[in-house]
């Protein structure tokens, strides 16, 4: 690795960090506008056209807030917690391929796993062969930020939030890891780059529909997004773990949460939705290469793949906002029960189904897919049925009570007159 490549990596990392933080700022705008649409409102539209300057206004506001450190807090940990939270959120991005812009000027290498060494991708910082493990590790470290913040603040609400976060993470980490493991099995690799390439012609969410669902549920829980946002349940804990945080320290937590949300969408895209792949992308690259030569083709493929990736990420973000707009929050104990008693068995089942099918029907992707898809759908419906069992549909009874004055004259046999009961609605 020569010095130029090192400088290039540093610049790349810087650009991605900046892009991600800008992405965070605009995600807040995206979420608020979208949520407003769901809720029959307009959303922020005062600062700049369509309210596009709203994130800047928010940032300025938070910068100028007084920086308060509670006297009773553990100052070092208190200050370290937001740093830890935001750092882990950004580091995840290192291994995610946003697209393929081959700086060697050959777009065909992007689509061939065997020619991995010929790809010098400008749209991925680090191509690690254990990228998936790295993602799992870093997402788990992220919870330390929240837990430590809750503990170091020395406030009751914050502590409850912190404890909730660690309990929640333990409950969901396993199911999350197992859902990801099914992708590793099906794709046959731990590298994010190769998983994207393995999804040629077949995005993994179809065969791994069950794993995909488990992944989305546990990812929502990992992100502490609605309906699993117990950690900062406003109605219960005022603000949860970040109750005692203000100014930019609060902004860092906010930032970590939203960056994690984008990162999780990016991971979901990479693992299940074909990453930067888009139908016809290779044909497009070949066509451009014929007309204008290899470099324009590499650039076009780079741009289209990046666009395709961002589009898929935006789709997942939409789902996260949609969830927030429509679901009530779960309770602490229900969340743990759901994690251990529903998600984990399903994840284990998924982890059994995938290798068994792969071994039984070797070398035929499409039959494997068909079997796994049918089994996955059946499992989901079966689980839903079992979960909904014993739930009685309740209605109110419509009654015509007898007025007080008439009770004694009409029915004096018992002290409390029986009201006449009408039909139930």
């Amino acid at each position, binding site marked *: 690795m020569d010095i130029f490549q090192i400088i290039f990596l540093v610049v790349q990392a810087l650009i991605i960090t900046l892009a991600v933080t800008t992405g965070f700022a605009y995600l807040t705008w995206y979420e608020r506008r979208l*949520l407003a649409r*769901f*809720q*029959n*409102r307009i959303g922020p539209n005062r600062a700049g056209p369509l309210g596009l300057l709203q994130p800047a206004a928010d940032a300025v506001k938070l910068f100028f807030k007084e920086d308060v450190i509670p006297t009773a807090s553990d100052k070092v940990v208190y200050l370290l917690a937001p740093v830890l939270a935001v750092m882990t959120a950004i580091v995840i991005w290192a291994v995610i391929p946003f697209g393929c812009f081959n700086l060697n000027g050959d777009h065909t290498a992007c689509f061939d796993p065997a020619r991995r060494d010929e790809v010098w991708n400008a749209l991925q910082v680090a191509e690690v062969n254990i990228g998936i493990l790295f993602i799992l590790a870093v997402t788990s470290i992220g919870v330390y930020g929240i837990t430590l913040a809750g503990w170091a603040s020395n406030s*009751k*609400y914050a502590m*409850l939030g912190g404890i*909730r976060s660690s309990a929640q993470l333990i409950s969901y980490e396993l199911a999350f890891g197992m859902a990801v493991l099914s992708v590793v099995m099906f794709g046959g690799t731990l590298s994010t780059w190769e998983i994207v390439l393995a999804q040629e012609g077949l995005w993994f969410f179809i065969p791994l529909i069950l794993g995909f669902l488990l992944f989305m549920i546990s990812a929502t829980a990992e992100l502490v997004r*609605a*309906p699993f*946002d*117990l950690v900062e*349940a*406003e*109605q*219960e804990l*005022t603000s949860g773990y970040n109750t005692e945080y203000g100014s930019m320290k609060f902004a860092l937590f906010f930032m970590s949460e939203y960056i994690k949300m984008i990162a999780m969408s990016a991971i979901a895209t990479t693992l299940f939705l074909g990453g930067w792949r888009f139908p016809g992308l290779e044909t497009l690259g070949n066509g451009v290469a014929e007309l204008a030569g290899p470099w324009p083709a590499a650039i076009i493929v780079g741009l289209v793949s990046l666009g395709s990736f961002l589009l898929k990420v935006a789709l997942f973000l939409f789902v996260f906002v949609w969830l*927030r*707009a*429509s*679901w*009530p*929050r*779960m*309770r*602490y*104990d*229900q969340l743990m029960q759901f994690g251990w008693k529903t998600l984990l068995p399903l994840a284990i089942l998924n982890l059994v189904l995938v290798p068994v099918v792969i071994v039984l029907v070797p070398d035929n992707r499409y039959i494997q897919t068909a079997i796994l898809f049918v089994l996955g759908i059946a499992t989901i419906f079966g689980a839903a049925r079992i*979960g*909904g069992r014993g*739930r009685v*549909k*309740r*209605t*109110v*009874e*419509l*009654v*015509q*009570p*007898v*007025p*007080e*004055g008439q009770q004694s004259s009409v029915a004096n046999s018992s002290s409390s007159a029986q*009201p006449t009961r*009408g039909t139930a*609605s």
Partner: protein
Amino acid sequence: MSTLTIPSPHELIAPAQRGERESMVLNMGPHHPSTHGVLRLVVDLDGETVVDVAPDVGFLHTGIEKTMESKTYQKAVVLTDRMDYLAPLSNNLSYVLAVEKLLECEVPERAQTARVLLTELTRIGSHLVWLGTHALDLAAMSVFLYAFREREQILDIFELVSGARMMTSYFRVGGLAYDLPADFIPTVQVFLDTFGQRIDEYEDLLTNNPLWLERTVGVGTITAADAIALGLTGANLRATGVPYDMRKMVPYIGYETYDFDVPVGKNGDIYDRYLVRIAELRQSRKIAYQALERLQQMPSGDYVTRDRKIAPPPKHEITHSMESLIHHFKLWTEGFKPPVGDAYSAVESPRGIHGTYIVSDGSPKPYRVHFRAPSFINLQALPHMARGRYLADLVALIASIDPVLGEVDR
């Protein structure tokens, strides 16, 4: 019966301060997002489990009952709005009925029908706030905004009739403050026509939502006997299976002539309270339709009693008749004087039985006014329901009891 007791905040705080307890004492409120105003709760927590909870009320005490003693009967109406600020017209009605009982005053049919219509709209509006905040407390955020969209229409109707959106003070002793405006009937018609579909929308979002069921079914259960022992009224009582509704039991302003049912639950949990209130929305709409039809049949007529000792004469009479001028002068300078005695009236407000007790010493100002505020009494059930539940349930319970702190503290 020991579970029905309500601890004082001091009982929970003092041992914790002396370090005698392992559990954590958490001070929720008076400034807390989900205490529906300025309710302070001292919660004794064992982890996330509520060991005991002591509601501390009085942060919104405004001395309404005392202030009324220095106002004439007619002027005191405006104070009643400020109690249950989500159902001002129900409060107006409760007070006005008591004074009318004291005066033995006849109220014209048209005013009574308008009162029925407007109090039912109040009930719908108040239940919408309950629905919205209840859903919001369980983080189903969108329902809140949908419910407030419909409440806005109701507030517009109030503004149309009284000029004020919340503090309407539209009911006066003897009838109404002004006549109903010309476009009142079509406006209400439009609202009622669309509203039925809106209730279906709320139900689509919540009634069969698995998470909503998880959070509400079997939570905060109270038996009918306990509910009666604690003096619960309104939907909180009816959810336990007791069909007690003042509109049926002791009908007032002609409720006996309207066709409606009383929705009753079975289990007395949060979900039943939810179902009962949703069914009440439909029943209120039904009553409002009937009242509207009656108003359409009598488009004009008296809106206030013709008894000039109580209600002022119309403006044009004053310029012609000496007697009218004297009445006007007397009413405006000192008000009317009810006979010595006392009167109690109770109405079914959205929150339960709202009662007014007035003692008159024969002067133009009440000697003593006391309100039976349903929120205050319903709030008593909170510790009983919350013990042994989770902190998150406590929030849901406050919402399902539906207290209005203005009324709790008065």
